[in-house]
């Protein structure tokens, strides 16, 4: 369990070119990005199912592929556990025979012992004689994991492991999968187009876009400091806005947006210092916009970046409401018919009587305005 996963590959296909390089200490690595960005292709190259045109793949101390020296281990010799999207369980084999499928070549007693051990650890006891068609979605996922883990893989690859499941099950199994990955301690690469999934499962996230890596960072860093507007968009962040720099210092950035002067926290570690007058992108999470209560008088000094606006649209999401605010300022709204999306808990919506009261003063803490480097 030492060493790193290092991928630097190029693959040209008709109408698509994959050109990625990333490296990660062995842990759980998330490949995150929209469909068609090249995530699955990367997995296939890692597994040896597709041969890259150029580059190098190293896992731990083993070179899987190196175009320069002509090394290209066949999939059979890579010892990679591949959990396919949709699982690809052998429909003609029982659970126990699926799980023991990769153990051929070992003595019979060995195979039986290993299969039984995997079945027990994954809680599949009692299902040994069932066929995949007779299993629930969650059980199939565990069988697919078991089949891959049984060979004691050097690296586990999971391609959209939860996409075959429906929503309620998906959340439960996401946590179950996380537990399994932690418990087995196997290095893994998880492909997903869902940021929450990537965040829950992976320690480090590599963001893909159109065949390239646009950011690779520990998950917390990605969450709070997307490297660019592209990354923010792929993450599905809302309120990605454009303004103009007024002044930038290592820890503050003052910017002008819709006739307002906003103050944002800069990141000293990133040392992003755009010159005045340059365009700048930033985002504000909808749940961090605070409505100012009218019965509480003047806002305290924490309430920075005060603005006024009118609610021009709203949507009920059950436990929360999404409000669309339009600033009182003159000019075209920033996002079509509105300037900001604001999320308020259902209870707050009722207490503040937002249904009737449509005009509000609101504030955004400077720490909640996240600048996106160009």
């Amino acid at each position, binding site marked *: 369990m030492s060493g790193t996963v290092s991928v630097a590959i190029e693959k040209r296909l008709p109408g698509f070119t994959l050109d990625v390089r990333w490296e990660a200490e062995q842990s759980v690595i998330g490949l995150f990005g929209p469909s068609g960005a090249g995530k699955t292709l990367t997995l296939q190259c890692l*597994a*040896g*199912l597709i041969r890259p045109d150029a580059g190098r793949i190293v896992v731990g101390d083993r070179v899987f592929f190196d175009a320069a020296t002509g090394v290209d281990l*066949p*999939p*059979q*010799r*890579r*010892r*990679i*556990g*591949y959990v*396919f999207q*949709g699982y*690809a369980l*052998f*429909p*003609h084999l029982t659970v126990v025979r699926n799980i023991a*499928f*990769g153990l*051929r*070549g070992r003595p019979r007693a060995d195979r039986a012992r290993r299969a039984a051990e995997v079945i027990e650890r994954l809680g599949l006891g009692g299902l040994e004689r069932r*066929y995949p068609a007779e299993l629930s979605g969650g059980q199939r996922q565990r069988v697919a994991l078991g*089949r*891959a883990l049984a*060979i004691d893989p050097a690296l586990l690859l999971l391609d959209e492991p939860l996409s075959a499941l429906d929503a309620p099950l998906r959340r439960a199994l996401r946590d179950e999968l996380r537990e399994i990955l932690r418990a087995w301690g196997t290095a893994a690469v998880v492909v997903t187009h869902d940021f929450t999934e990537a965040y829950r499962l992976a320690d480090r996230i590599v963001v893909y876009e159109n065949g390239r890596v646009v950011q690779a960072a520990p998950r917390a860093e990605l969450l709070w400091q997307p490297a660019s507007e592209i990354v923010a968009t792929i993450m599905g962040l809302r309120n990605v806005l454009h303004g103009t720099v007024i002044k930038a210092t290592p820890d503050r950035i003052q910017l002008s947006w819709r006739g307002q002067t906003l103050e944002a926290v800069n990141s000293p570690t990133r040392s992003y210092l755009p010159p005045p007058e340059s365009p700048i992108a930033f985002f504000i999470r909808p749940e961090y916009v605070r409505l100012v209560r009218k019965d509480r008088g003047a806002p305290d000094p924490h309430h920075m970046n005060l603005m006024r606006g009118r609610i021009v649209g709203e949507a009920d999401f059950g436990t929360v409401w999404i409000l669309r605010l339009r600033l009182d300022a003159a000019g075209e709204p920033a996002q079509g018919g509105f300037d900001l999306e604001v999320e308020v808990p259902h209870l707050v919506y009722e207490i503040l009587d937002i249904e009737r009261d449509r005009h509000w003063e609101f504030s955004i803490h400077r720490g909640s305005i996240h600048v996106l480097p160009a």
Partner: protein
Amino acid sequence: MDLFPLWLSLRVSLSATALTLLVGVPIAWLLARRRFPGRNVLEAVVVLPLVLPPTVLGYYLLVLVGRRGPLGQALASIGLELAFTWGAAVLAAVVGSIALVIKSVQAGFETVDVQLEQAARTLGRSEWSVFWSVALPLAWRSVLAGTVLAFCRALGEFGITLMVAGNIPGRTQTLPLAIYDRVQANLMDEANALALVAVGIVVVLLFGLSRLARLRY
């Protein structure tokens, strides 16, 4: 009544079916799964026996395996003669039925999810093992259907057989040729009996096929 044509036909059809599977299944696998130069040519050649007139096929086979044909001479040099023997009838049946097996089995292999084969490879299985443990068990229905089709086609083979094996009573006269002979000789009762036997064999086989196809794996 002389039942020799029945026994000969069964022997010829069984041998031909076995040979057809032996040659046809690997070709079907190649066509379904591999990209190689000449693949399109092979795909076209494979269907030729289906579209060419049987007498034309028979004629060329005769040219090939006849005494002065290249294959005929090669065989003669090791003391074998193929033309106008029951072996020639087997060859005729193979040529007549192999396209059915290849097309049916190829379609079967193509419906097997490629991912299952890739999964087997990542689990350490060789190409040989992938074929026997994954592809064949999942495509067995098509293989079975192809087998039954090939057997029925071999049983009914007439034109090619006549050209290359002849119609020698007691040696190469198969069931269809015997029926033809009896009709020519106006022995309608015998023709009728032989025809009914042929119908019976085919009906039993097709019934068995439909029963087997209901099994899962």
